[in-house]
């Protein structure tokens, strides 16, 4: 049986004929990932999607109309980027719009919720069922209270339950990238090793091909192994490109934990069927007591930025010294004027063009020609963060090089100089919760035919 993954991320787009070509390859289901933690803690903490509605609508219109014509199911995981209840409802609204506008019939939607209540998580914590993943520490009730939203990552089981319950469109909250792809093959009795391995290879769409852009892949899963092929006829899968995808965003190139157990690809063999398709066999799956990984994100403060342009060669030749002396000066001034203790504010200098990206890890080089210094002031609330930036402002404008005999001025990008970024979120959880059933944390809501 075969699964079409049209793109690595719903809303990223895919070539116009992806769905029709995938369907002519005889796929049984279309699966697509709608989110990830990859863009940081904001999307979960604020419960807002990363993708714009128009882009998701475009992709979903193609997917849902193609699937309805072929009478196959559609599975979307990690709806609305973070998989919060909001994200699921957001995708449900877009789904309904497509169904109405395209006059699709016979579509039954299941919404699977993955957001977890704080009381439940605290209870599980109290019962000793929550365990840290390296390198995390044990958490307390306060950690749970500090999260604005908590989601659990579902495996294939709740998705399979929704399909068994009669749905042919499944909108899942936070799910593992592979779960949306693995659900239907596992329901149809395909072996766990090849199914999970195929799902990992296909999770980012054409990333496992020779291409460098967006596009889809199809995985054909059988009893002995699986075949992966790109949808786009210009693209190829080679044993190298397929095997290399096990490395992607994965700490261990051979092992991948899912709620039901661990995929082990250390004995997998990759062979070219022809110049576009690769056959993989030897993938194993080790069953373990089911656990569900938790993700939590909460507000840790607010931030205000100022951007200062530095172009003077004398300054740039001594940029580190200048930044250090500016920082020392500000730390002497902020507590005195604003009455803030050391732990109540944070200032950072990010010299873009010098070492903003790598900090101390940057192999130093010749002085840069120009630096955009991003000054970041962080505090408990926006007002305080902006007060810190305003207090820093005259010095950002005029801070002299140590030993200079006159007052210089530097460039500002904007007036006002202060750019308020709003709340700042941080990931709070890197933990798993033991479950007696892999479906227990994920309630399902079905609609009548739309």
């Amino acid at each position: 049986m075969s699964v079409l993954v049209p793109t690595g991320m719903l809303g990223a787009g895919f070539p116009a004929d992806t769905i029709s070509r995938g369907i002519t390859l005889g796929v049984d289901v279309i699966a697509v990932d709608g989110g990830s933690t990859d863009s940081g803690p904001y999307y979960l903490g604020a419960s807002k999607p990363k993708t714009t509605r128009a882009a998701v609508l475009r992709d979903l219109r193609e997917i849902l109309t193609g699937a309805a014509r072929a009478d196959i199911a559609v599975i979307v995981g990690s709806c609305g980027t973070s998989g919060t209840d909001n994200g699921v409802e957001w995708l449900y609204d877009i789904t309904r719009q497509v169904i109405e506008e395209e006059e699709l019939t016979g579509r039954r939607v299941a919404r699977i919720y993955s957001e977890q209540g704080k009381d439940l998580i605290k209870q599980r914590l109290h019962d000793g069922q929550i365990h840290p993943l390296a390198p995390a520490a044990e958490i307390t009730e306060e950690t749970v209270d500090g999260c604005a939203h908590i989601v659990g990552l579902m495996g294939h089981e709740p998705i399979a339950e929704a399909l068994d319950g009669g749905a042919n469109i499944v909108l899942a909250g936070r799910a593992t990238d592979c779960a949306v792809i693995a659900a239907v093959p596992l329901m149809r009795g395909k072996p766990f090793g090849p199914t999970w391995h195929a799902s990992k290879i296909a999770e980012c769409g054409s990333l496992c091909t020779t291409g460098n852009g967006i596009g889809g892949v199809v995985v054909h899963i059988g009893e002995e192994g699986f075949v992966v092929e790109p949808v786009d006829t210009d693209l190829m899968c080679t044993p190298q490109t397929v095997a290399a995808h096990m490395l992607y965003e994965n700490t261990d190139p051979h092992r991948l934990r899912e709620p039901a157990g661990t995929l082990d690809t250390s004995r997998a063999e990759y062979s070219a069927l022809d110049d576009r398709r690769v056959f993989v066999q030897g993938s194993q799956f080790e069953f373990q007591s089911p656990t569900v990984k938790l993700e939590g994100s909460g507000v840790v403060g607010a931030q205000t930025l100022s951007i200062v342009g530095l172009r003077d060669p004398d300054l740039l030749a001594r940029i580190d010294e200048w930044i250090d002396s500016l920082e020392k000066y500000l730390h002497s001034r902020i507590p005195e004027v604003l009455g803030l203790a050391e732990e109540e504010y944070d200032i950072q200098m990010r010299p873009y063009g010098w070492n903003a990206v790598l900090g101390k890890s940057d192999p130093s080089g010749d002085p840069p020609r120009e630096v955009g210094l991003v000054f970041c002031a962080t505090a408990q609330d926006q007002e305080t963060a902006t007060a810190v930036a305003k207090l820093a402002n005259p010095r950002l404008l005029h801070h002299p090089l140590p030993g200079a005999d006159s007052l210089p001025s530097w460039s500002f990008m904007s007036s006002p100089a202060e750019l308020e970024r709003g709340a700042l979120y941080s990931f709070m959880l890197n933990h798993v919760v033991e479950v007696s059933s892999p479906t227990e944390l994920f309630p399902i809501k079905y609609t009548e035919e739309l």
Partner: protein
Amino acid sequence: MPNTLPLRQVATKIRSKNAGPFWITIDLFFSTDEAYATTVRSGAITRQLVADLYGVDHSHIKLFELPDIRAIKVSYPRVTSQGSIHDRDIHAAQQYIPLLDIAITQPDPEAPDL
């Protein structure tokens, strides 16, 4: 004086990325068995090197040598969790840069094959 080349000239692709919000993983790909073997044999890519370059505890670093696909993989915990106040690179997308100029000792053409 042994002949060396910077890693960027020996590997065909070097990339870094988040592996979840708390880990960074770096992949080095080589286009020939020889380039891969030379790099492994040079002993330049070690957990200690990664610890020194990125300021992480060397006991947490995972290093994998993958001859079948001519790749070396290194994973290490983030010093700052992804997107937290002091994170400089949300996707850890540019964290491979310090490795580009690591010197890889090249085989001596005069030496007998061992």
